[in-house]
């Protein structure tokens, strides 16, 4: 277990016109569950390969507990990795697979056969795979194989960091959450530093203590899942995280000065963004004060995601002058009807960067849907 510091770490493939990874700095604390989230091509695999020693950084340093390991090989960094598909030694039993990393380093760590055996029993017990120990990998399902692969990564008690490269890709959707929970529980119990690379925001947000959102070879935002969700440092983060992502509206000061300045929006703000659940729908006939953040529009379609107290809830898409806005809550307006989108809370951006969070004062007693935001807050 180690504290990991990436210091101005950057990478460019030789001859490539643009660097794959722009110099970035981030600190991953000891025993932290850290997630790297980004679409494909964001540079997260490059970052992972730099961490695992497959690539050597072109700029900057990687520090494990203050020691520069940038040019060390993967085995010298004492780290473990779980891959997209289960990687096991096919000719060895599950028990021997688990024991492998300890046996291979016997000369260094001085483990006795008994130590190794008790560690195998412990890890197998944690993962609930004791009954598989005598079997060969080929008799296991993909799910079980990946469990074993995770177990093997956790075998070394002194491992500095466990890298997880989209470990749930090959696993069936139905068993993903089981594996994810096992991982999370083990991470907490064993206190292992884990770096989880994924393009799946649900995985990242539920697994990690902190998430780094990557795009175009940069880390745009590093923070707790809640922070990343509620106060995205960059417009892309707001757009990328959440399903659907944030609504964005360009601020046209000339048209509605009162609406923005009344809510304390700084004059440099260029756009505002709000989560679908931060807004609600009201009758088109209702009057609003000029400081209420609201736009009239027409419902284009609804997507029912479930029910709440017997009433359908989901996403309503409304076409307004400022673009299509999505609102989460009770679905009580049919497609084609005229409504007003009222925003209770939003964030403002300048040059795509986060400026501030604003709470509006537009709530009124005869709102269409009082319960709309109850579940989300």
């Amino acid at each position: 277990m180690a504290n990991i510091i990436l210091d101005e770490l950057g990478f460019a493939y030789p001859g490539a016109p643009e660097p794959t990874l722009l110099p970035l700095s981030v600190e991953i604390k000891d025993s932290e569950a850290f997630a790297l989230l980004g679409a494909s091509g964001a540079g997260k695999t490059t970052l992972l390969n730099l961490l695992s020693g497959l690539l050597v950084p072109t700029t900057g340093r990687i520090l494990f507990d203050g020691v520069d390991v940038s040019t060390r090989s993967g085995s010298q960094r004492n780290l473990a990795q779980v891959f997209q598909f289960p990687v096991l030694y096919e000719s060895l039993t599950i028990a021997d697979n688990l024991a492998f990393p300890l046996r291979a380093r016997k000369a260094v760590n001085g483990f006795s056969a008994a130590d190794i055996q008790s560690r195998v029993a412990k890890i197998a017990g944690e993962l609930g795979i004791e009954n598989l120990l005598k079997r060969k990998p080929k008799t296991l399902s993909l799910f079980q194989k990946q469990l074993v692969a995770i177990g093997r990564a956790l075998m070394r008690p002194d491992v500095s960091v466990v890298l997880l490269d989209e470990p749930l890709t090959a696993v069936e959707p139905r068993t993903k959450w089981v594996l994810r929970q096992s991982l999370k529980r083990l991470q907490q119990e064993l206190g292992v530093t884990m770096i989880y690379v994924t393009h799946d925001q649900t995985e990242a947000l539920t697994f990690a203590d902190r998430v780094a959102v990557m795009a175009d070879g940069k880390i745009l935002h590093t923070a707790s899942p809640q922070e990343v969700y509620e106060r995205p440092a960059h417009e892309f983060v707001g757009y990328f995280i959440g399903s659907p992502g944030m609504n964005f509206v360009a601020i046209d000061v000339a048209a509605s000065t009162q609406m923005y300045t009344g809510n304390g929006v700084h004059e440099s703000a260029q756009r505002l963004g709000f989560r679908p659940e931060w807004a609600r729908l009201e009758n088109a006939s209702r009057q609003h004060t000029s400081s209420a953040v609201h736009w009239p529009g027409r419902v284009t379609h609804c997507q029912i995601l479930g029910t709440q107290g017997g009433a359908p809830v989901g996403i309503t898409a409304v076409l307004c002058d400022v673009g299509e806005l999505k609102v989460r809550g009770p679905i009580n307006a049919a497609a084609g009807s005229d409504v007003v989108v009222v925003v209770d809370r939003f964030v403002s951006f300048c040059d795509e960067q986060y400026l501030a969070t604003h709470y509006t004062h537009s709530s009124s007693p005869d709102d269409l849907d009082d319960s709309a935001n109850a579940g989300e807050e």
Partner: protein
Amino acid sequence: MALNKPYNNRAWLGVLPVLLIVSFSAVIPLMTVVNYSVQDILDFNSRFYVGLDWYRETLQDPRFIEAFGRQVLFSLSVLAIEIPLGILVARGLPKSGAWTSFLLILLAVPLLIPWNVVGTIWQIYARSDIGLLGVGLNELGLAFNYTSNPTHAWLTLIAMDVWHWTSLVALLAFAGLTSVPPAYYQAAELDGASKWQVFRYVEMPRLGGVLVIAVLLRLMDSFMIYTEPFVLTGGGPGNATTFLSQYLATMAVGQFDLGPAAAFSVIYFLFILLFCWIFYNSVMVDDAVDDAVDDAVEDAVEYVADDNEVQHHD
């Protein structure tokens, strides 16, 4: 997993063409030989049934036993060199890039040369009067002459076979090695595996299947070798490099001893069959090789099996 397949016995008719072709190309000729092997054929009109006499005689024939011993020694020697060397060459090849194709083509060249040409090439190459190798060795002070020294003749033959066939093993092993996903190497590296462990636990399980094929091919081929030694040494000096097939040819074509030659052929055939069978069965109990061979089937049923597993877990 029980699949309800409809059974239709008319499908057997579809096998008929294959059956006919195999009958005429293999079974009938083989049976003719078996037929000859139990008769003493003096000329076309006078033949006598002699039972297993020819078999008994062949197995007791000192020249057969010597040739057989030489044959086994030759096969084992070339296998012992070609298999490890082939793996070594395959491991040394770059996995991708411009060099790979070039080297693969270069490796394939010996396989494309007709066998009697290979014999001729080495016959000249190793000659102590004009051959590059022979003259070179003599210049170095080694009195090399494969036409008079049995050991030199053997070394030349083995060198020729290694030159001719190591490529085959290397190409097969290379195909096996490229099937190892890079993540397996990466995982082994992070686990702290030594080079030997990487070979033993990452590469060997994947190589098993192709190596079985390579050994079988080389075992059969080297056991039946005829053309190259015939061209290179003609079985000499003396009988030092007379292998089974050459002895057989002398017997059947040279001396026209059809009965003994037929019995010889059947014994020869049965030995090759026996060796292959023993080898195949002895390696197939090993899980690792089994895995590699079954892999394709395994992958196909994996998803179905997974589904079942998932239901158990639920």
